[in-house]
């Protein structure tokens, strides 16, 4: 392997105890060294190519009257980021990079300082009359991550039970469409529903639709034992076609009745929302976002702390053994798939009632597949998947914000979140270990 060639010489000092190192360990070191070396090289380039060292920033989501841009000198931030990357590079080259929690914290620190150093470069020396200011990335990140997290939870539940769910995108579309329709009907005078219950009724529509697609998934995967990868793709095509078909069935003059929902209102949580920087973004949100927080906790608790969760994981790992001790394999799988449908339906509802309002054709734009990638990147753990989803949301939001700075071509910037996913899946996740019986139908012999 050429891995050892890339390691920088540890400046003549011999390692005291020659430990036995396996290939995985060497590969880890090589990966760290290469990553930090690239980071360092880029940061030095960023720091050196800044001419005008003043950038502006706001702590809110965007510049407003109460939130005037403040000035910041880039020098300290840029070179501080260079120092952090350099330290990490030296530690990795000497094979002294910490492991476990300390390593994670240090890697995160490198990531954050790289982000800051990059921001300084991206926002400095803007040509043109309009000067964009650095804004708080958290609100935008949360807006994009919320449905991704909910979809990833659905994926986790299904796949932990041994049913591959590629149809998250289909559940999103169905959930989005029916949440919009149910909310619109509730607020129109067609049926009598108290105003306070209109929004929950709409969300119920999304949940019912998500569970509906989950029922199809369960029926064909568990009952008819269809290849689940194939099935997922077909269900996405079916949901996309059916929702577009149904949307076309709503007559133009009745759009208001059927597809013009009220958007969910933001609910402010008193004390928490006053935390600077974070508060507004995390605790002045719609009910869907709070449901998302709760769902992550609930799914984690269910999967890892309850008897039912143990059963779910056992039918996903070794259905035959589970059957032997009397667990009804397909019944548990059905439960997990249907419960997953609830979360995916809620995630879909975000695309209509949670953000933009009316349903449009393919409104979720392939994000269901990103949620799927988040499941795998999070190694089939709800919390891991949630963080992976937030990472995608962050990348996406960064691309949105940078599109105001005319320094990078917009089209290539648009590809950045997807490229980041490929790099994350190929470079840092690699060969993951899925639940052992994931995708295998269980036939009792």
């Amino acid at each position: 392997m050429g891995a050892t060639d890339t390691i920088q010489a540890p400046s003549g000092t011999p390692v005291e105890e020659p430990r036995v190192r396996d290939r995985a360990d060497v590969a880890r070191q090589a990966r760290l060294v290469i990553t930090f070396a690239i980071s360092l090289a880029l940061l030095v380039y960023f720091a050196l190519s800044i001419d005008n060292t003043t950038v502006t920033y706001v702590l809110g989501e965007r510049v407003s009257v109460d939130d005037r841009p403040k000035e910041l000198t880039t020098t300290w931030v840029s070179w501080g980021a260079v120092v952090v990357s350099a330290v990490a590079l030296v530690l990795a080259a000497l094979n002294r990079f910490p492991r476990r929690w300390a390593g994670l914290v240090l890697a995160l620190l490198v990531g954050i300082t790289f982000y800051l150093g990059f921001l300084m470069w991206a926002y400095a020396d803007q040509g043109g009359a309009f000067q964009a200011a650095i804004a708080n990335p958290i609100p935008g990140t949360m807006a994009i991550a919320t449905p991704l997290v909910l979809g990833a939870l659905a994926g986790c539940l299904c796949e932990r039970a041994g049913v591959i769910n590629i149809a998250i995108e289909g559940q999103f579309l169905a959930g989005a469409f029916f949440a919009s329709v149910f909310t619109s009907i509730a607020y129109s005078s067609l049926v009598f529903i108290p105003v306070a219950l209109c929004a929950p009724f709409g969300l119920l529509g999304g949940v019912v639709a998500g569970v509906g697609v989950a029922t199809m998934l369960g029926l064909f995967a568990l009952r008819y034992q269809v290849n689940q990868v194939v099935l997922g793709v077909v269900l996405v095509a079916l949901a996309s076609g059916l929702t577009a078909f149904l949307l076309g069935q709503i007559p133009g003059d009745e759009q208001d009745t059927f597809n013009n929902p009220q958007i969910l209102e933001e609910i402010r949580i008193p004390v928490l929302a006053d935390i600077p920087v974070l508060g507004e973004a995390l605790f002045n949100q719609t009910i869907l976002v709070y449901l998302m927080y709760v769902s992550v906790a609930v799914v984690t608790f269910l999967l890892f702390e309850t008897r039912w969760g143990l059963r779910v994981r056992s039918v996903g790992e070794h259905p035959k053994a589970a059957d032997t001790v009397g667990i009804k394999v397909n019944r548990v799988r059905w439960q997990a798939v249907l419960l997953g449908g609830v979360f995916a339906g809620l995630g879909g509802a975000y695309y209509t009632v949670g953000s933009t309002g009316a349903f449009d054709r393919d409104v979720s734009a392939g994000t269901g597949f990103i949620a799927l990638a988040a499941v795998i990147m999070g190694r089939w753990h709800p919390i891991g998947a949630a963080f992976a989803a937030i990472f995608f949301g962050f990348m996406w939001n960064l691309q949105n914000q940078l599109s105001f700075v005319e320094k990078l071509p917009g089209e290539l910037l648009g590809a950045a979140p997807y490229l980041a996913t490929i790099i994350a899946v190929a470079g840092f996740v690699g060969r993951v270990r899925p639940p052992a019986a994931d995708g295998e139908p269980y036939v009792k012999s």
Partner: protein
Amino acid sequence: MSDAKTAQPPVVPQPKPGPGASRWEAWLPTVKETIAAVVLALLVGALLIIFSTPRVIESLAYFFSYPWDFFKFAGLAVWDAYSALLNGSLGSPGAIVRTLERAAPLICAGLGVSLAFRAGMFNIGAQGQMLVGGIVCGWIGFGFDLPIVLHFLLALAGAIVAAGLWGGIAGFLKARTGAHEVITTIMLNYVGRFLLLYFLAKEAFQRPGEDNLLSPPVADSASFPSILGVHTGFLLAVLAALLIWWLLERSTWGFEIRAVGANPDAARTAGMSVARVYITAMTAAGMLAGLAVAMQLLGRQDPLSDQIAGSIGFDAITVALLGRATPLGTVLAGILFGALSSGGLAMQAAAGVPPEMSQVLQALIVLFVAAPALIRGVFRMRGTGQGTTVMAKGW
């Protein structure tokens, strides 16, 4: 992730060994089930048509006093729609030409997906491969002035090479890092789309004097030769299918692909390079997608835009599934979906059925084909054991 857990191809019924057992007999149940699945999908589609026709819904209001109206209008609506579907796809020489023209890229891209299936991989990336192939193909086609045969061959080769490289990325990532091809190909689809948009914004890719994201059509010297006004893309698609059949069934490489698809661990033990098979199979799959986009650019002389691949890249998956990942099956499935697509337009024009109807029909057909147990249950067919337990494996 163990390599044994890759997407398995839909079960290909193997002819039983022994005297007297002909290939046809082994395939007969599959053919029957496929036809039954198409019929069932059309029946479900008929229900959708009935309940989306205003006249039929109105007649429901007085169903109990005069039920005949409901059945009459429902029957008429379905008859109108499906006769328009048939007429628009096969009813006239012009319709047949349109069907074949739409079938050609579906067959090529479908062959790519089939090939990847046979190697145990699920290639969702035909769309992105087509877009990237289209960038190079279109650029050679309209950006250069070359002699007639050379220009065509160069543009065709450009499409195939670029798309092949794009497909190869996913194979390489799977072979070297274990990144699952379902995720990488989906992401590469988006990256390819943005790459195309990036080039479309360049002046060299736009019509002179205009700045919308639309290129000029390729030069006549780069277009497919046509016979009686029909471009020869369809013949090329059939030739490609023959080539893939020969490669899969008669060449060493094809044997390795099938071995890796059946059981990568056993293939590795037998001394085959599983990584090389992944990379070459995905590259070949991408090359076939490149051929598909060449059909659009050089055959129909469509301008290069982000709509150049339409939904062909995704329909290719359903074509490959319906064709049971075999070359002959893919050709037949491609023709069927080409007919659905050209007939779908006629159905919209003549009977006012929304264009999404063909997408729904396609999805339903594949769903039913993938669930032979359901089909046998509905049509009371006798099970043969073949295809009942599709080995469904995932990551």
